[in-house]
């Protein structure tokens, strides 16, 4: 009976630990390139090629803060990641589905990595949807 009781307690702790782990957001690191890049005219905005037409609806990233972080284990290419995660509109392979992008990235900490003069900057960003 005691063993049974101990097992149940262990099991409950195990479930609790799993649930607690769920709440910690993972971090995704993306490199800047000619697909995901800083807007020349507004350094706080990072735009995605073919997806910055505010007249039709733009999805882009906005700077939250500059962070200091340990060297990431994996740096992702946004274009490849978006393709693998099926973030594009079904009928238009160039256009991102803003809802899918926002809903997915809301679950992660997104950090963009830029390198200038041998210095690496880590910028935490979040998705923004904007339309006329």
């Amino acid at each position, binding site marked *: 009976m005691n*063993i049974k009781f101990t097992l149940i307690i262990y099991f409950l702790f195990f479930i609790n630990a799993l649930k607690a782990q769920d709440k910690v957001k993972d971090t995704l690191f993306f490199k800047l390139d000619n697909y995901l890049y800083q807007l*020349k005219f507004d350094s706080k905005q990072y735009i995605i090629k073919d997806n910055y037409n505010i007249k039709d609806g733009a999805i882009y990233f906005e700077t939250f803060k500059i962070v200091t972080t340990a060297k990431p284990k994996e740096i992702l290419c946004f274009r490849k990641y978006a393709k693998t995660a099926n973030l594009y509109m079904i009928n238009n392979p160039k256009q991102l589905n803003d809802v899918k992008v926002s809903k997915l990235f809301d679950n992660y900490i997104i950090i963009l990595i830029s390198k200038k003069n041998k210095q690496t900057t880590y910028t935490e960003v979040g998705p923004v*949807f904007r339309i006329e």
Partner: protein
Amino acid sequence: MKWKTKSHIKVIMILCIALLMFDCQNDENLPDEPQNKIETVTSDEAKNFLMHSRNNFSVKSVNKELENLEFNKISQEKINGSDQLLTVIPFASNSNHENNRILLLKIDNEIKSVVFSMYADEDSDKGNFSGKLFSYSLDGTFINGFRAKDGIIIGQFFENSIALKNNMENEKTSTLTRKSPIQLNEVVVKGKPSKTVDALDVFGASGMFNDFDSGSTYYSWDAGGGYAGITTPTSMEIIDGLTGKSKCLNSLLNQNGNLFVQKLLANFSGKSEFDIKISSVDKVMVKDAQGNLIELNGETTYTSKINPSLINISISTSRSNDQSALDATRTILHEYIHADIIRKLYTRNNIPEALAFNKVYEKYGNQHGTMAALYLSSMKEALKEFHKNVLTEDYIKYTNYYDEAPSDAFYEALAWGGLKESNVKAWEDLPADKKAEIDKLANRAILLSKAAPCSN
């Protein structure tokens, strides 16, 4: 030993199943079939009904209280379990401790109205209402009463006829919202406690607690707008930061917009999942990827990670002042529709409607494509009614100038503003002559009056 291990596995499996069942348990029983036919009372119908009622009351005090109604704050609130809306008009005398509102609903084709009063206890907080809720007929007759604690109904009041009779004889007057709970008997609610009030019960048309126990259909109202329980009433959660002409037109649209507009705005009322902040800015300017500066009539922005419940709308003052009043109203409505599409797409409630709307969104490719396909006809009707009923002087001028009343095609042409420029599929599919006709009719809007009909 083997037997013991088997037994442990069994216990763990039962525990797992129990946990899964708790996770999936749904708090509410969804209704099957409605009991009474209910319909929305439009703002105009509500005003006419109450004006007519005023003339019919001989008691002066009742008339005086009806004069105290804030018709400019009329709103239409969601009825859970129905797509119809409850029309709500607050009294000017409302305070933190006492809140009186007139509720109107068509029940079985007849307009019913009641005074709904909420008396907050001293320890009541804004999020979870504690206190008493009563509904009375317009002549002051008690209909129903409830006691709420921390947003949950825990008791119901019944009329004590002897005490009531004595009191009536002493006072010799009948006024709205006046019957003290001292004249009533109170019972504690048994069974499942409710976080809402039964919309029909408030009107005295059904038996509230029978419905909850049996799990059969009921129409419930949040009585303040809370998903989590009854809350202290709040005004519509559309934060108005507009100025000048835009402010005037937006407030007229909120008060006098047709049923489509009222239903759309009701989705943001009370403690809704999304709020709107609508503000005026001198100019809405954006730079495209090439750095070209573009001026817009207005824009809608949503940043889910920073504020998942807020949709921001900016309206250009410079553009609004330049446009005709009707076209400026069209811009405001256009942005509200963007907010509505965002609400449907970005909801965190995993409901089938949201999944279905996401598929529709994929089909039309973007928000303007979706708006053109699904909202154009409603926009046309909303603009038509607003022009005729609110911008009436302008409507008459148009009719005199063109020697004809504005056609449906004219309002449709207006509704295409901000959509056809995006070359959405619905526009591209139109034949060339139809497109030319729309462009020609849309140009008539330039001749309309720019002035907004507000005194200040």
